[in-house]
């Protein structure tokens, strides 16, 4: 068993903020020893950096600004998720509650209670009507959004349930737990369809690919594994050879061709899982202790991730450049979520707040999303 604390537990000491909000991006860029040196953050930096896929459109930077701060939770907020229809935001916390916020009017909607211990993760069913939450009380609970009532309790895990993911058609749910098993559940009956002894350390992340044929899981043992949904067999294992740092979260790219994984060596990596090759390493943030979420931002071509220095980082997917840092949180940022249509980012963290950032810049949609 790893000594890593659960995602929501409060830190043993309050970490001083590493940088003042007045810091500019370029400061942070050059502060990383691994980033190639750059004169400025404009596109002329391409001189000493072979970024082939940069087009004039790409250089357009995001201009996210803090729009709302929600202070409802009485503990650290471990995860935040936009609903697939883009109308709601769900946040879950160490205070054993899930709170629903409107992503249209940006107001508080309701609090869902029932878990007997802190909650690690939430996920929306594809119809945006059902919500699942994974908790330290070893259960996963399914909730009806309309009534706020509990639909099902999925019991079976022997330890904290850490991460959950609905399948794209919403008939099954995958969960990863501290008991080192990956379970697949039938959402209609609540029965466990499969238990996969997937890893040798707590599982920190699970995610379905867009057509539901594969599940990816990651663990503190440093491995990322891809499973065939139909047979339950392992199809591929990925490992970062030199680092072998605990993996704290993983997800498929919107088109299902790549994986984005966060590791405790303060890096998010983009993997081509077919070739078993790491294509991009996103650096600049700090992640040594907590499980921090990262995701893709539609409409910009950004990767967004939290950081232990209480900022939210946005990287360009292709150039790995930090394009913006969102400053506002007062403690570790754990969860990030991007609006399915783009232009809005939600973040949450140990300071007990959930924050919404809106892109004030001219939005130009880049790339399609799978419906």
């Amino acid at each position: 068993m790893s000594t890593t604390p659960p995602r929501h537990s409060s830190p043993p000491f309050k970490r001083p903020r590493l940088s003042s909000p007045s810091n500019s991006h370029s400061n942070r860029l050059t502060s990383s020893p691994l980033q190639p040196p750059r004169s400025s953050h404009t596109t002329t930096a391409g001189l000493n950096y072979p970024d082939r896929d940069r087009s004039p459109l790409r250089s357009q930077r995001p201009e996210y600004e803090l729009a709302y701060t929600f202070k409802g939770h009485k503990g650290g907020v471990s995860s935040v998720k936009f609903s697939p229809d883009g109308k709601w935001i769900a946040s879950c916390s160490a205070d054993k509650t899930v709170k629903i916020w409107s992503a249209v009017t940006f107001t508080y909607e309701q609090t869902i209670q029932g878990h007997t211990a802190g909650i690690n993760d939430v996920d929306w069913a594809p119809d945006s009507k059902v919500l699942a939450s994974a908790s330290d009380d070893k259960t996963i609970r399914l909730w009806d959004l309309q009534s706020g009532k509990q639909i099902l309790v999925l019991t079976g895990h022997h330890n904290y349930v850490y991460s959950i993911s609905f399948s794209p058609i919403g008939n099954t749910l995958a969960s990863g737990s501290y008991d080192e098993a990956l379970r697949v559940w039938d959402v209609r009956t609540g029965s466990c369809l499969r238990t996969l002894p997937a890893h040798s350390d707590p599982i920190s992340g699970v995610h379905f690919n867009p057509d539901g044929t594969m599940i990816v899981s990651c663990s503190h043992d440093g491995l990322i594994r891809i499973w065939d949904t139909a047979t339950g067999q392992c199809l591929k294992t990925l490992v970062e050879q030199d680092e072998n740092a605990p993996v704290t979260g993983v997800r498929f790219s919107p088109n299902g061709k790549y994986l984005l994984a966060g590791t405790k060596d303060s890096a998010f990596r983009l993997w081509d899982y077919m070739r078993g090759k790491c294509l991009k390493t996103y650096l600049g943030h700090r992640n040594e202790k907590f499980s921090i979420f990262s995701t893709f931002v539609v409409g910009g071509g950004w990767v967004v991730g939290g950081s232990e220095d209480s900022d939210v980082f946005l990287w360009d997917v292709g150039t790995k450049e930090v394009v913006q840092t969102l400053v506002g949180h007062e403690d570790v940022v754990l969860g990030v979520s991007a609006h399915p249509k783009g232009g809005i980012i939600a973040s949450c963290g140990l300071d007990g707040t959930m924050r919404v950032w809106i892109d004030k810049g001219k939005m130009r949609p880049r790339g399609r999303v799978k419906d």
Partner: protein
Amino acid sequence: MNLSLLDPFALAQEYPESLKYQLKSGHSTCIRFNWKGDLLASGRLDGVVVLFDMETRSLARILRGHVRQIQSLSWSSSGRYLLSASQDWLAVLWDLETGSRLRTVRFNSPVYIAELHPHDHLTFVASLFEDSPSLVSLHHPTKTAKHTLPSAPHRPASDSASEGEIDEKLAAQDSKQLTTATVFTANGAYIIAGTNKGWINIISTSTREVLSSTRLTNGCITYIRLTMSGRDMVVNANDRILRTLHVPPVLCHPHNSTPPTDITVSDLELEVEHKFSDVVNRLLWNHCAFSSTGDHLLASTYKNHDIYIWERSLGTLVKILEGPKEELGVVEWHPTPRPLVAAVGLETGLVFVWAKEADQRWSALAPDFEEVEENVEYIEREDEFDIHPKEEVKRRRMWAEDEPVDVFGMEGDGAHILYMS
């Protein structure tokens, strides 16, 4: 999407090996996979239609609307609509998004087979018990337009008056022809109908006239099934022979393109490709189906427990699936490349599923390992054990990360295209 990671040897396995599990909900009489293969519709003896989720193997939906045994089921290509036909003289079109009954059509006799138009869920063709087949259009929101289709074979006009007597005889015979099986071609422009006297009629959907007729056998034709591509078909008749035929290429023009106008009778000639029969036991075939690719044919046998699988192009028997100790009725092959076959037990009404589960590839669990057939002498690379400073290695690797990536677009996803086709 997972195809590119799957073991190619497991994919090459084209037919299932052994009985894996069974699905139970009442007494099933007829089953049908949707086009994606994630749902299996099952019609029951008590008239209830249930949908099994093939992934969770549990019930996804229960549809109540019939009071007698379900005879046939047909999915729309989108997977949203399901047509069920029953011995209670009704055909019901279900909207599965809401689980509601969209339309109910009453006939004047029990329905044998009702099949939806492949591109229009508001049109279907039904073959009826001792009645003329019907082409039904539900385009009007309330009214149901039923068009009777002819059953009499198309006979070329005779050239001399002296044969009038024979013509009369034929006409008398033709009036006894009853259509027992109907199916749309892949583009929906034509209907292939089989009669109780062993004739196959090709009927135009638009003019509702018989374009050509071929006599395959003397026996009654009980079932016609097309491959997913629509280029081949299998005909089951009660003369104990399954026949595979090529659908005439003129009938296979793509949907939405204009059909060829100058079709001659010779274009529509049907030629039997293979005949499949059990020469030893003289078994009667209960039901038959094609594999997803159309390369294999399977059939359940009358008063026997086995399912036969043939390789279609060569006509050879490749596998006899053994399973439950009971006679099997309707058989279905999963519409994806997965080797999976489902069949209904006539006595118990259970749905039996045969599958082939690939073994775990151990190399998948360890990224550095590769499975080899025999020992290989390892030749190290020139620089394999060179020692570089860690920072230097890291920097080099970071600089090598210059590949363009597209995390949003779906273009060029070969595996995905393979899955869809």
